[in-house]
């Protein structure tokens, strides 16, 4: 079983993830076949719906924005050796932060209110992640279990607040009143229109730029900063970290705070960029998709952007596909996400061994 696992760098970072994605799509194709539909035409509708039209592309990039944030969130914690599966809860709380800021400071002009809303999201997301981080660092509770519990606590809390506290008295829906107009993050088509360029209208808004900036920031942080180095040391060898004078407990808490703040980006895109009010279940399980994105992207910002694009295509294309072939609902994306997590995360060793095996055979043949 112990095939040599030292692979060339390109094989490790590109080939192995690519194989697991291809394998995931083959399995997904089998599922499509299994329910009596044609996987090839399904793929055509998927690509046509997500990339074939300007409008579709806009929606694809909108979803991509969501996934970049949650993917980065999982990745930063992952570098510190933490498996943060609390993205759902952290984003939910970030949504609460946004609503509290925007609906209480309605008198502020947009150029102040928008950054404050974003800060509110980051602060609330960070706070919700900091508690499990603290409990892991200081009390030894397992981060996975605590973040699961915090996801459920967040969903219970938000239901309570939206039903009993934040809901408008005359409204029947469990949602807040609309945010003030000046707090809307501009839609991309509006921005382009201001410059006289016409692009199709979609949900895509300027948060995408923020997501790309966050990716760059995370790259700087993890690979180019002292803190990032400390995070990676704690993640790979906490004992060595102690000898190097790094406090693992402090790094764990800091990494979770950054992770939670990044998860808040999901709320910024969804609420400030599109829904313009706080409503139930706006996170739609994207927090879990973030795990797939981070695993597929090898926790590297470039990989995460590419993986987010792929999931953006899947979400938008999946919606169009569900319209064309009603038997294939958007839950297909959840299935593909699950398979990718299984293949790229848990069965990673399997594919690595297969690739390593091929490489050694090739080397022997040449010799």
């Amino acid at each position: 079983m112990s095939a040599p696992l030292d692979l060339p760098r390109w094989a490790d970072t590109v080939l192995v993830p690519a194989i697991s994605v291809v394998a995931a799509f083959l399995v997904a194709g089998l599922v499509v076949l299994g329910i009596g539909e044609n996987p090839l035409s399904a793929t055509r509708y998927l690509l046509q719906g997500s990339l074939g039209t300007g409008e579709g592309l806009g929606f694809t990039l909108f979803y991509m924005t969501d996934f970049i944030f949650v993917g980065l969130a999982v990745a930063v914690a992952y570098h510190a050796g933490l498996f943060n599966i609390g993205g759902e809860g952290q984003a939910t709380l970030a949504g609460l932060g946004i609503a509290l800021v925007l609906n209480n400071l309605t008198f502020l002009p947009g150029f102040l209110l928008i950054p404050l809303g974003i800060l509110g999201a980051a602060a609330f997301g960070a706070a919700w992640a900091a508690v499990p981080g603290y409990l892991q660092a200081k009390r030894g509770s397992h981060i996975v279990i605590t973040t699961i519990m915090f996801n459920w606590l967040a969903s219970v809390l938000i239901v309570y607040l939206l039903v009993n506290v934040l809901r408008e008295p005359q409204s029947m829906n469990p949602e807040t009143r609309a945010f003030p107009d000046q707090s809307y993050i501009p839609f991309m088509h509006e921005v382009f229109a201001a410059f006289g360029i016409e692009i199709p209208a979609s949900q895509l808004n300027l948060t995408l730029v923020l997501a790309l900036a966050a990716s760059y920031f995370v790259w700087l942080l993890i690979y180019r900063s002292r803190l990032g180095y400390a995070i990676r040391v704690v993640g790979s060898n906490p004992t060595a970290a102690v000898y190097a004078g790094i406090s693992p407990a402090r790094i764990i808490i800091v990494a979770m705070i950054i992770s939670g703040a990044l998860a808040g980006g999901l709320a910024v895109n969804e609420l400030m960029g599109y829904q313009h009010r706080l409503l139930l279940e706006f996170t739609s399980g994207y927090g879990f998709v973030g795990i797939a994105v981070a695993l597929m992207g090898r926790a590297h910002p470039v990989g995460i952007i590419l993986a987010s694009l792929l999931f953006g295509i899947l979400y938008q294309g999946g919606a169009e596909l569900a319209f064309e072939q009603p038997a294939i609902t958007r839950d297909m994306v959840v299935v593909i996400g699950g398979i990718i997590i299984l293949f790229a995360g848990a069965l990673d060793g399997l594919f690595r061994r297969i690739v390593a095996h091929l490489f050694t055979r090739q080397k022997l043949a040449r010799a």
Partner: protein
Amino acid sequence: MDLSSFVTVFDSALRLSIPLLAACLAGLWSERSGVVDIGLEGKMLVAAFAAAAAAYAFGSAWIGLVAGIGASVVFGLIHGFASISQRGNQIVSGVAINMLAAGLTAIVGNAWYAQGGRTPPLEGVQRFGDAIFGHSALVYIVLLAVPLTWFVLGRTRFGLRLRAVGENPAAVDTAGISVTGLRYTAVIIGGVLCGIGGTYLSVGQSAGFLPNMTAGKGFIALAALIFAKWRAWPALGACFLFGLLDAIAIRLQGISLPGIGEVPVQAIQALPYLMTVILLAGVIGKAIPPRAAGVPYVKER
């Protein structure tokens, strides 16, 4: 509260705790052997779907139970393959199991029945009807699993070995006993129990499958497992307590208590999660998991 309403609450607490108990015992078997299982939710969900679909197709609740167990065991084996044979990350694999289950049940349910993911309503022999004291046979099967788990794990050679694998697999390996074999056995037993729990949800408690009908029960079961400190009898207690909280939450809806006012249902729903967090933080006693839980066993080290 008078006697009759007390009995009603007790009765509904029992009903609500049965799926928790089944999943909790499943987690207990798996984690005692050293395989962490956060896919309890997913396994219950596939079982609930498979059971309802089979019970509808074949007109028998018992065939439904077999199908539910089968589906849950298959998912358990996927988890086992990833985490035992391939030594993958058990938590990642568990997350994958949950997502796969949520997606697959919705897709297949929608493709087969075109009712938004539901199965057609079950009636008559397609369901587990009331057998004794107004409870179905499944309730007694799950309750029976508690002493059985306690006895097998605590009083038999097989149980001793299984627990040893969860604490110190290398020692068991040295004694010439297969770590892999024992862990797979535990994962399969866990699959069977989750299968019974899922079947209870769709074919016993309700009359058919609804999308996402487990609604976090797998995670509450996980909380109960921690609360019970990975022991069978305390698991019964923890699950019943959580079931009772749920029953009280339903009962308290819209009722104003003297001196306290209206207690938000959500506050009571949050209790199991909150209690688990506090327990894990070491505030009320310490929860020590099996020592090798979550660690893949590598022979050549």
